[in-house]
């Protein structure tokens, strides 16, 4: 067994950061600001990002690097997601540095939890052993349950937490059942072995059942309809920066798992799950967009839009393996950039005790906060899928994959959906830029502290990312295309002997 710590470098960094933050927290006397902890967390996250880059240098060209007796596999795929998650967390931390005014809100624990959660997500993406995946999933889930309920005083916060927690555990049970059935069908829980085992299994039905159960479990995590029901409520109740995080990073991780599972563990069952995926995609896109259509609460609106985007992302799965993986990876990145960005803007606009919530609160905001509004508008345009933004290239890439995979009808449905979608984004956009009926902007409540340097940095980073992914996506595209083939396991270990 090889205990190659290089394989764990980013996770280790994050975990250590979390621990350090926790250790440092008591040193800061009560009533004092927790910002230093935030900076500490930021440093740690940046370090783990660099570590991921270093891993990229390692896996460059050479075969994927497995460690801890095959539980962890470092390849372009996992490194891509490591980078993605690290940067998402980084941006979130930057954005939430000034989020907590009063120290009673456990800023320290917040930073620690974010780091730990990120660790779990990273483990999800890099592990090829379902047990490991499960634990990573639980780490990320539990930490996000807590983060969702972080604005304790408020009734909505704890409600969001409880809903997320109960339904989350409910779905976890399904996921777990799926793993159990995989184990039952193949006698193993490592991706490679499952792939090998399913090829020769005598009980294919168990395999199909396993696929279904895993789809349900992960479908919940990526909030794909009909397992999306928790999303709007939780997003509305949770703090804005946390929503930014939990609408992207855990989803990205869950999608990574889904990709690994579907394309590595059960490729031979494609006929069984591809139609299912297509149906889930259609349902998610439609329900998400329709739900957002009449929303007045902006966070809720973005929640529905994230459901729709999960649908777009599922469309990618209908492509051939190579297309699917690379397009899905790219879309995840693009979506992360614009969505986190949007929520960073929200954080800046409405602050801890969300003063701006409904569409009316945003009407004519461009007059008061021109820069923030412009950036927000940019993210919205990207979410619509206007060219020269990451959102557009992502959509374009995804739907081309679908068409290439022979799912033209799905592409048509999807693009028609994006037509519906632009209605509610535009409502928000038009509201931002419309001159309010009464030119008394004074009484419109807005959260008036100026955008601090870290937040500005976060905004700049997300905006730049969204733009670059739209105009010069080559680097990222290259990485995702490299990630594609490595998700296929080179050697299939011998399946355990079936009972005599």
């Amino acid at each position, binding site marked *: 067994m090889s205990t190659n710590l290089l394989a764990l470098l980013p996770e280790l960094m994050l975990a250590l950061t979390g621990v350090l933050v926790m250790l440092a927290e008591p040193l800061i006397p009560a009533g004092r600001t927790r910002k230093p902890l935030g900076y500490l967390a930021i440093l740690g996250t940046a370090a783990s990002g660099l570590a991921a880059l270093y891993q990229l240098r390692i896996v460059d060209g050479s075969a994927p690097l497995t460690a801890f007796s095959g539980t962890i596999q470092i390849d372009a795929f996992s490194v891509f997601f490591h980078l993605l998650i690290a940067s998402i967390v980084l941006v979130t931390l930057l954005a939430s540095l000034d989020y907590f005014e009063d120290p009673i809100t456990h800023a320290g624990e917040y930073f620690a939890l974010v780091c730990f959660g990120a660790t779990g997500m990273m483990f999800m993406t890099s592990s090829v052993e379902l047990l490991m995946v499960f634990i990573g999933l639980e780490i990320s889930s539990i930490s996000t349950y807590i983060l969702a309920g972080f604005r304790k005083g408020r009734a909505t916060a704890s409600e969001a937490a409880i809903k997320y927690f109960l*339904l989350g555990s409910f779905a976890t049970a399904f996921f777990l059942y799926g793993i159990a059935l995989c184990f039952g069908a193949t006698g193993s829980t490592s991706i490679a072995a499952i792939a090998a085992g399913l090829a020769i299994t005598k009980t294919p039905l168990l395999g199909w059942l396993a696929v279904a159960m895993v789809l349900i479990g992960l479908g919940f995590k990526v909030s794909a309809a009909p397992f999306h029901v928790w999303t709007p*409520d939780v997003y509305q109740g949770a703090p804005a920066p946390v929503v930014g995080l939990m609408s992207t990073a855990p989803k990205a991780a869950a999608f990574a798992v889904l990709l690994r599972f579907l394309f590595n563990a059960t490729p031979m069952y494609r006929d069984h799950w591809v*139609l*299912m995926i297509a149906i889930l995609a259609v349902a998610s896109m439609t329900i998400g967009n329709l739900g957002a*259509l009449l929303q007045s609460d902006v966070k809720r609106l973005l929640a529905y839009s994230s459901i729709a985007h999960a649908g777009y992302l599922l469309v990618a799965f209908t492509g051939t393996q190579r297309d699917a993986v690379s397009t899905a990876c790219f879309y995840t990145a693009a979506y992360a950039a614009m969505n986190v960005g949007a929520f960073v803007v929200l954080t800046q606009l409405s602050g801890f005790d969300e003063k701006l919530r409904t569409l009316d609160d945003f009407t004519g905001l461009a007059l008061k906060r021109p820069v923030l509004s412009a950036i927000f508008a940019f993210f919205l345009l990207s979410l619509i899928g206007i060219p020269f933004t990451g959102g557009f290239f992502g959509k374009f890439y995804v739907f081309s994959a679908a068409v290439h995979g022979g799912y033209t009808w799905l592409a048509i449905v999807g693009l028609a959906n994006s037509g519906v979608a632009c209605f509610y984004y535009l409502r928000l956009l038009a509201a931002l830029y419309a001159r309010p009926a009464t030119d008394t902007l004074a009484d419109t409540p807005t959260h008036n502290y100026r955008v601090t340097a870290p937040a500005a940095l976060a905004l700049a980073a997300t905006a730049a990312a969204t733009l670059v992914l739209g105009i010069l996506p080559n680097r990222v595209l290259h990485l995702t295309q490299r990630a594609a083939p490595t998700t296929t396991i080179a050697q299939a270990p011998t399946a355990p002997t079936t009972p005599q």
Partner: protein
Amino acid sequence: MNPQLLWLIPILPFAGFLLNGTIGRKLPRALVATIALLFTLAPALIVVQLWLFMKSDGAPLALSVVSCPWIAVSGFSVNFAFTVDHLTLVMLGIITGVGFLIHIYSVSYMAHEEGYWRFFAYLNLFMFFMLVLVLASSFLLLFVGWEGVGLASYLLIGFYFTKDSAANAGKKAFIVNRVGDFGFLLAMFLLIAHYGSLDFNTIFASIAASPLTGGLFTAIALLLVLGATGKSAQIPLYIWLPDAMEGPTPVSALIHAATMVTAGIYMVARCHILFDHSPAALTVVACIGAATALFAATIGLVQHDIKRVLAYSTVSQLGYMFLACGVGDYSAGIFHLMTHAFFKGLLFLAAGSVIHALSGEQDMRNMGGLRKRIPITFWTMSAGVFAISGIFPFAGFYSKDEILFDTFTSPNHLHILLWLVGLVTAGLTSFYMFRLWFKTFFGTPRFDEHTAHGPTHAPDLHAAHLAAVHASKTSTLVLEAEPEPTHTAHAHGVHESPWLMTLPLVVLAILSLIGGWVGIPEALGGHDEFKHFLSPVFNAGLDIAANPQHFLMERVDAGISLLVALLGAFIAWYAYCYKPGTAAALAAKYRRLYSLVDHKFWVDEIYGRFIITPILVVSRLLLNGLVDGGIIQGSASSLAASTRGGGWLVRRIQSGNIRSYAGWLAAGAAVVIAIVLFSHHTLPH
């Protein structure tokens, strides 16, 4: 001479237009007038030189100049190109000559108008387009002039645009002409489609070489006729001309009597080769001409507005010209066109002088006994009246007689009927012209000395006011027209017009006396120079006039027409001088008939009710209301509504209750499991 001079003929007036149009507002009136006159005189001089050149032996039959292409695409191109043949020469003479005279007249007539510069700019613009029209060597260029004169007339009729009646009249003129142009355009499209060109020579050559037969050819001809009826105010499109009297009187004289309205006849004559190959079309032309002549004459009988009487007589005379073309004697048509230009121009100018004298009074019921007060006007106008009525030896006699005779001898199987119509019209013409003559100049003065004043500022203001009331009754394109209060000024007394106005009258009077002598047929001892002059263009029609056994017939015919004219004159004298009450009594006796004629057979109303109103109603209710508002907007909004419904449904699902959510999850899970388990049966592979 240098053919490039041809370019100058239209371009000079255009230069005048540009000068007056841009900076004229700043210039003194004298200068404006001088510019306008100079830029009209110059082309006239060029035309004279041209005429001398063409008369000289060894001169070519036609003189052409070609310039850069105007429209050029692969497979089709049209150049700027002018051609002068004898037909064009005649037209040029009329336009520049009469045009120049009327310019002179206007200088003093419009002396006190607002927008003096505008008026002359428009007049020059008109000259430009009219000259282009007659010089054009291709249908398209002709069409340029054709539309251009329409524009000029639109602007000049609407000269007093502050009054809705004037603006309406202008718009009506333009749009009715557009209906004609519609036909003209279609004809051109067909020509392009089948000859790939619009050049006169090319087309006529290929027609002469291989005449297309069948409906298409007739269609082209008839479409051209539609265009001609629009421009030359023939049935069914004559309705704009009477309203066009809203414009200043010189405009009526120049555009709506002498030149523009004859463009249709010119066009038909120009395309005579085309028509010669389509007898059906020719018959139509003849019938339209005859019908219009009679129809307009009857309306003219009962008009009281002096200018409207002249307007209807113009329509009627144009009908004659159409008739002439219709029976294939184009030269006769052109001949009458020329004489008509003289005497009708004269009549309008004289009428203008009368109106001027009476400070804008146009209603003949308020005139009378002016013989002594404005002698020059009286004498010159008399010449005009005699000429138009066809009294020997005035110009009208010869031209009209030739038309009647040619109609009678034409091979057309309707020729007798047409001839009778022409004859009756001749009688009616002389009746209403003499009626006008008597009512204006003889009898007791019926006008009020005190309102009569002058030199008036805007005679036509008052005229237009009368017309406005009139138009609001008749013209259907009028939306609202309230008569304006007639402005009163200090009394001054009836007076003769200044010499600048009387000079053109005199010249034209002489012309309407002797103008016809160039066309005295052999039968009456002349040589018919006119016909010979035009023979290079229309080589047809000579044979009939030439052979002597027709001489007797022609003399008889001439006698009959003269008698009819005198009869008409006599009845007019009887009804309006000898026993003034007669007309009124007759009108009372046949009230229905009278009101029918008085309301011009309700034609405007019929057009209004059966064409314009339906179009507006359809656009408003059907197109705008049903199609646009209902179907096109409705479909979009219904789509949006259904989507909203979906949104509402999704929000309902989001009830906020954890157990419901779990319910959805469970159900969804069941579905997913079922699909994954059993989808492989449905998937083809």
